């Protein structure tokens, strides 16, 4: 049985690597092959044709695109992310510190949003159709339908402007003690948790309701089991796979949310680095950040797939 699982996991891993290759191609294509001469852009309007030509040669822009793609790809794989155009530092150095910040933010958000979302999702599925359930779905539909920046600006208005509990900007430079740490993370985490958990609540609820509609749950109902017992003992174990899947998928919303949230709150993470790189057109930095986002997204999907396979023996026979 373990061999079967291992083979399936290896297969998923292979698919992930293939996807990554295609994604790398898409990122490279979008940044380097679309119209717009990088050398011209870097040197600006006033550059002489000779200077542009010189820079093109220095940057290997005259080589065929496919060769440049391979060169870039092998560089990525050997850990050489290239040099930043804007300040001529190693991209890897620029990213490493920022990545830790972003991961911290994602971790704290996950820590808060997963338990809340699970509780709300499962209970609203238990009391389907009740007033409580309807309130929860009105809340989730509203949060899903409004842009992330609106959640963030609302949080600023409420917590920073009216209540004056928290600072509007979070600069995680000097941290003394737990209280300060909480104040710094509070705003970005509140915003992200709202966005992510709305998605998670919806998907968890749908997953539990799906299992509640099965024959064995009806059987449990007929033999007189209590509602709590039906949900917790009969439905939940079977809904575990879909729920974990839902959580991994919702956490991938963190990626989109993080770009907006880090920009608004001026949080020094990878996404802020990337948005800044966009304004200076620093292509190597943008490419590397983009690849980091895609890798983390694909990893989340992979984890979700593997957990689904572990939780549901029926998926092993595909």
């Amino acid at each position: 049985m373990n061999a079967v699982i291992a083979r399936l996991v290896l297969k998923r891993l292979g698919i992930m690597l293939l996807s990554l290759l295609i994604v790398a191609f898409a990122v490279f294509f979008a940044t380097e092959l679309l119209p717009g001469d990088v050398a011209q852009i870097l040197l600006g309007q006033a550059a002489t044709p000779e200077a542009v030509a010189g820079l093109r040669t220095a940057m290997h822009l005259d080589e065929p695109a496919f060769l440049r793609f391979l060169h870039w790809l092998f560089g990525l794989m050997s850990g050489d992310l290239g040099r930043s155009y804007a300040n001529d530092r190693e991209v890897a150095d620029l990213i490493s510190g920022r990545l830790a910040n972003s991961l911290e933010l994602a971790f704290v958000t996950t820590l808060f949003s997963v338990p809340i979302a699970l509780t709300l999702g499962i209970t609203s599925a238990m009391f389907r159709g009740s007033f409580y359930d309807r309130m929860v779905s009105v809340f989730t539909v509203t949060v899903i339908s409004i842009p992330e920046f609106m959640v963030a600006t609302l949080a600023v208005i409420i917590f920073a402007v009216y209540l004056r509990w928290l600072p509007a900007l979070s600069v995680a430079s000097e941290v003394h003690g737990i209280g300060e740490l909480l104040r710094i993370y509070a705003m970005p985490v509140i915003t992200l948790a709202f966005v992510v958990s709305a998605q998670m609540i919806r998907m968890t609820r749908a997953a539990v309701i799906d299992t509640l509609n099965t024959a064995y749950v009806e059987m449990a109902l007929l033999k007189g089991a209590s509602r709590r017992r039906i949900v917790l003992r009969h439905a939940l174990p079977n809904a575990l796979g879909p729920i974990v899947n839902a959580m991994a998928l919702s956490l991938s919303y963190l990626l989109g949310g993080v770009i907006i949230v880090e920009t608004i709150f001026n949080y020094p993470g990878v996404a802020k680095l990337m948005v800044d790189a966009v304004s200076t057109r620093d292509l190597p930095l943008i490419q590397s950040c983009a690849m980091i986002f895609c890798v983390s997204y694909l990893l989340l999907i992979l984890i979700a797939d593997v957990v689904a396979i572990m939780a549901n023996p029926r998926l092993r026979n595909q």
Partner: protein
Amino acid sequence: MTSTARRSPRFGFAVNAVGVIGASIILFWILVAVFAPWISPYPVGKIVDFDYYGPISSDFWLGTDYLGRDMFSRILMGARYTVGISLASVTIACFVGVTLGMIAAVVGGWFDAVLSRFLDALNSIPALMFGLVVVAAVGSSLTVLILTIATLYAPGSYRFARALAVNVNAMDFVTVARARGEGIIYTIREEILPNIVGPVLADFGLRFVFIVLLLSGLSFLGLGVQPPDADWGALVRENIGGLSFGAPAVVFPSIAIASLTISVNMLIDNLPRRIRDRSE
């Protein structure tokens, strides 16, 4: 499948009150987008008030923005960009996605396998991030925005339509059509499409919401519609300075976005089960 839902004679299905409200708000914004230049009280780019972040008054129904321009006119024109760009992108994305999805389901074989694998990989690119990459590389213009967004959402539409079409493709009437010797185009148009059109339209609506949110997000980051034009996301960005004192100039564009996206969701959630079956 027998449906016990009450049917109105006209459409063959009934929509409840919440759905009707949603539909009317959507219709309202579409009309505004079409007729904006004729109904806006002031020229969009003109500075009409000496005060910036002006309050709501009888002259300026929704206040004025950070330069003293009339917010009401700017929001009306913003509807053109937000609704127009989103509608154009979602139409392209769904047309390409659904067509390819149906072809893949009917043709099958290696064509289906290769296309599915490739589009799944594209689907794993976070939308906002890829928008950033493209805008960084080629700059922002209406064409670039529409094509980029369409490219990002076509794979999802493909996957959705293909999953539906594969089920229909296994039905007896499709086998019969094949046995009659009908071609791929006929099978797709006459046998598959009519059977998946309901869920596909619901999916169209949901994708429209995602696109409105993505476009607003891009514009909010300053990478979407470029000044002096502004969609609703860009209006929020321009007037974000008024946030700390709750200026109407930053509140109303946000409300406009929310009203549009929430009403699309309201409409789709309240469509009869028969139509939105399988949509999430």
